[in-house]
């Protein structure tokens, strides 16, 4: 029996590096101006999970994002790591979209592709943490969903996913088409290689507008987004003790840490 090549789609989002984002103490909005952009960390793990299946099975990996053209180098990076093609959904009309129209739009693009077996997404994005888009896409394309997964395998039309729950690990087996959302740090993303990077630059990126995926402009954007962010507050500041320990006092410090139960000394 000849098995047709699997088609895996990985959804990514370009986010400001969380370490460089802070809540403006005056306006209570997120200040991202100092931040550099990165691929959402969980999405890197989602890509790696897809590539691991490609390592085992004949598969095509498409990486996709909905963003302005600044996201192109990040799609390139994904191809440099092993994705076969990259799709950028870029349209002025989507600006301000929340997770509802985003899921709808991404689902439309997946439907356009027609032959998608598994969709991978990060469990959540580091800049908004809703975790909506993966499950939303599953709903809109009518696929099974395995969320919060840390390990994914594929065999004969079924996806097996280890889901990390509060009390333990649940292993689920669902038929394709399936959507799997991947936990942050659940694997070790591979690095780009020169060969793949050259090939990626030669292939380029596919750009779709809303018209290309048959989504009317009034289905997306700020006005078609039900979410309203009412306000944002910074965490209350915790002042640390900030004690400076001299070299000679290290044994004393260790004693104190043992006494307060922070660390434990075990006999060799």
């Amino acid at each position, binding site marked *: 029996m000849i098995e047709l090549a699997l088609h895996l789609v990985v959804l990514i989002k370009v986010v400001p590096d969380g370490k460089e984002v802070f809540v403006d103490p005056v306006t209570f909005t997120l200040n991202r101006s100092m931040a550099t952009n990165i691929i959402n960390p969980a999405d890197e793990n989602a890509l790696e999970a897809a590539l691991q299946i490609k390592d085992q099975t004949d598969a095509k990996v498409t990486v996709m994002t909905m963003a302005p053209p600044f996201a192109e180098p990040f799609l390139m990076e994904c191809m440099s790591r092993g994705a076969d093609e990259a799709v950028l959904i870029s349209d002025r009309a989507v600006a301000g979209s929340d997770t509802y129209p985003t899921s709808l739009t991404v689902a439309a693009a997946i439907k356009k592709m027609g032959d998608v077996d598994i969709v991978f997404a990060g469990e959540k994005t580091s800049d908004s943490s809703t975790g909506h888009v993966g499950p939303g896409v599953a709903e809109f394309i009518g696929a099974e969903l395995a969320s919060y997964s840390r390990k994914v395998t594929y065999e004969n039309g079924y996806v097996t996913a280890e889901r990390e729950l509060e009390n333990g690990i649940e292993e689920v087996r669902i038929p394709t088409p399936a959507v799997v959302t991947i936990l942050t740090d659940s694997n070790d993303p591979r690095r780009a290689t*020169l060969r793949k990077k*050259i090939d990626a*630059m030669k292939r380029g990126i596919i750009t779709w507008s809303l018209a290309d995926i048959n989504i009317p402009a009034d289905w997306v954007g700020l006005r078609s987004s039900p979410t309203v962010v009412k306000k944002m507050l910074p965490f209350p500041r915790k002042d640390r003790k900030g004690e400076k320990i001299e070299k000679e006092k290290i044994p004393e410090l260790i004693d104190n840490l043992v006494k307060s139960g922070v660390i434990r000394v075990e006999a060799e």
Partner: protein
Amino acid sequence: MSEFDAIVVGGGPAGSSAAMRLASAGHNVLLVEKADPPGSKNVSGGVLWGNDLEAVIPDWQKTAPVERYVKAKGVGFLTKDSNIGLEFRSSLFDKNRAGHMVLRAKLDQWLVKKAKDMGAMVASGITVDRVAFDKGKAIGVEQDGDLITSDCVILAEGANPRVAIDSGLREPLNDKDVAIGVKEVIKLSEKTVNERFNLRDKEGFAGEYVLGFLPDQVEAGGFLYTNKETISAGVVISMKHLRENDRTYSFDIIEQFLEHPAIAPLVDGGSVEEYSAHMVQEGGIERVPKLFGNGYMIAGDAAGFSFSNGLVLQGMNYAIASGIAAADTLIEAKKGNGVSEESLAGYRKRLLDSYVLKDLYNFRGIDEVTWGKLPHRAIPNALEHIMKGLFIEQGVPKKHLYQLMTEALGESGIRTSDAVLEGYRMLRRM
């Protein structure tokens, strides 16, 4: 048939210049840079003497991301209490603003973008493993098990030429060949920089110092360059001394430099924006490896093209000039009978005809006089003695300058006969 006419390893001034020259001559060139974005792994001070850049970017003076131009150049000998210095502040610098303080994170990114605009393919964030050879000819590079082919490989990977070493194209570096540079970028404000260094508009100050006050006979030099609203300050410490002396730490020496009574007021109140350390090539013709072979050339710091005579410390200009020379050699070879060891021999000839190898030949052995007790202890101490005698009134009969100088030699800590001999050698070699 190779995939590329040339693969350039390294997106610093040498590599980008080579790539720009090749791409604008219509060649199919791949530029591979390990840092992403390019420049983010660079630590250089530094001052760009960019005359050669004109050949690849005619309007660089107007468009390059430079901080300030060199309006004043200082050299100082530091003792525990004093800075005995010489400053050349001149409107002669205004006419041809060739020297510019740069922050390499910005400059390298700009140069790489220029190369891309001119048609080079740029792969950043990728570390090449080695040069691939077939029957003695370089046929491309290997990366993560893949072979990428090219007619010629230009190695321009900087002060730590790992690819050249791993490919057997040059000897590993010895302690004697390198020093450790440690640098801080200290944020002040444009106004404060202007006031403290007596500068206006885009004027800048570049200072080099001998740290004659360090304990344990440690030898190090310091530098201070003004950027627009920051100061790049750092030290260069001989690797030999770091290795021999367990108590010497590079971070400690930069602190001692910045806390020196003559330096501290200049950086006072600033916040450290960046802290970095890197190898610095000592330069010198003795350390220049075989510069080319069948299918490859080595340019910039990777080829040991840096210059230091104690008064100036340069590298970027040699990098740019050698990168362009490598590109021109390849362009000529491709027009003629193709790439071979013979056709690439023109690279060495071009460098010999230019200041790149001329400087290195003319100043051979310079490191023997720029490191050592004479410049690092005797001169600072002697100068301080003379200055003290001349300028600090002590209510005692005054001495003649000659008398002070003789005394100073006695104070210098090395034998008079040695000092005279060493001093003579030093002047000759500088």
